[in-house]
């Protein structure tokens, strides 16, 4: 399941959906939250813009890539857009697999690709009321390199 949405999501519901088959032996989930600090500056809220259409295609493509490399029985990617407050959930990636190794790897792979490929952009409002677009980080690009097949 892939969803780009404004509304929040429920961890228990997503976990239950991933657990739907008896062949599932491992579930790994990742949740990204809105932090109150970025680069040492105090953040008061966040808005997320995306490219409707391309975003969904991109997420489908990333999940397909993961499924070709690891045993993935069920998968969920949810990314929120619009206005978000501190501690709000932004993103959820859940992988159900036969074994934990595949579930951990597929989950991390999807997050690393999502962060560098999927067309989302964050704009922060700082505690002084100023707004600023978040810059892409080199560390996120570096994270991709470990997935290059040798």
């Amino acid at each position: 399941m892939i969803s780009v949405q404004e509304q929040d999501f429920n961890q228990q519901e997503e976990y239950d959906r991933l657990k739907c088959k008896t062949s599932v032996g491992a579930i790994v989930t990742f949740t990204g939250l809105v932090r109150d600090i970025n680069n040492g500056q105090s953040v008061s809220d966040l808005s997320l813009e995306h490219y409707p259409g391309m975003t969904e295609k991109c997420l489908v493509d990333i999940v397909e890539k993961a499924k070709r490399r690891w045993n993935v029985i069920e998968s969920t990617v949810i990314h929120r857009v619009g206005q978000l407050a501190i501690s709000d959930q932004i993103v959820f990636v859940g992988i159900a697999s036969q074994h934990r190794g595949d579930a951990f790897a597929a989950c991390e792979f999807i997050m690393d690709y999502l962060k560098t490929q999927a067309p989302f952009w964050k704009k922060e409002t700082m505690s002084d009321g100023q707004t600023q677009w978040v810059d892409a980080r080199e560390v996120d690009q570096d994270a991709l390199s470990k997935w290059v097949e040798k």
Partner: protein
Amino acid sequence: MIKVLFFAKLSEQLGCRELQVEVTAAEDTDQLFKYLIGHKAEWSNILTSQLCLKAVNQAMVNDNVLLKDGDEVAYFPPVTGG
């Protein structure tokens, strides 16, 4: 016509989210970029002073790509989701 979209910081700086460009002025993405640079006086500096990624028909491309009527080309800064 070619539908051109801008997102995030780039659309704010340009003051434009979308415009239509005649195919005759943009037979490929290199030509389209040249057209956009000349579209308004301030656009040249904005478009050339930072890394702009581009997507043709919602797929990222690096190289020059031929365009046809009805194509959608988007420009945007490096992504920051997740």
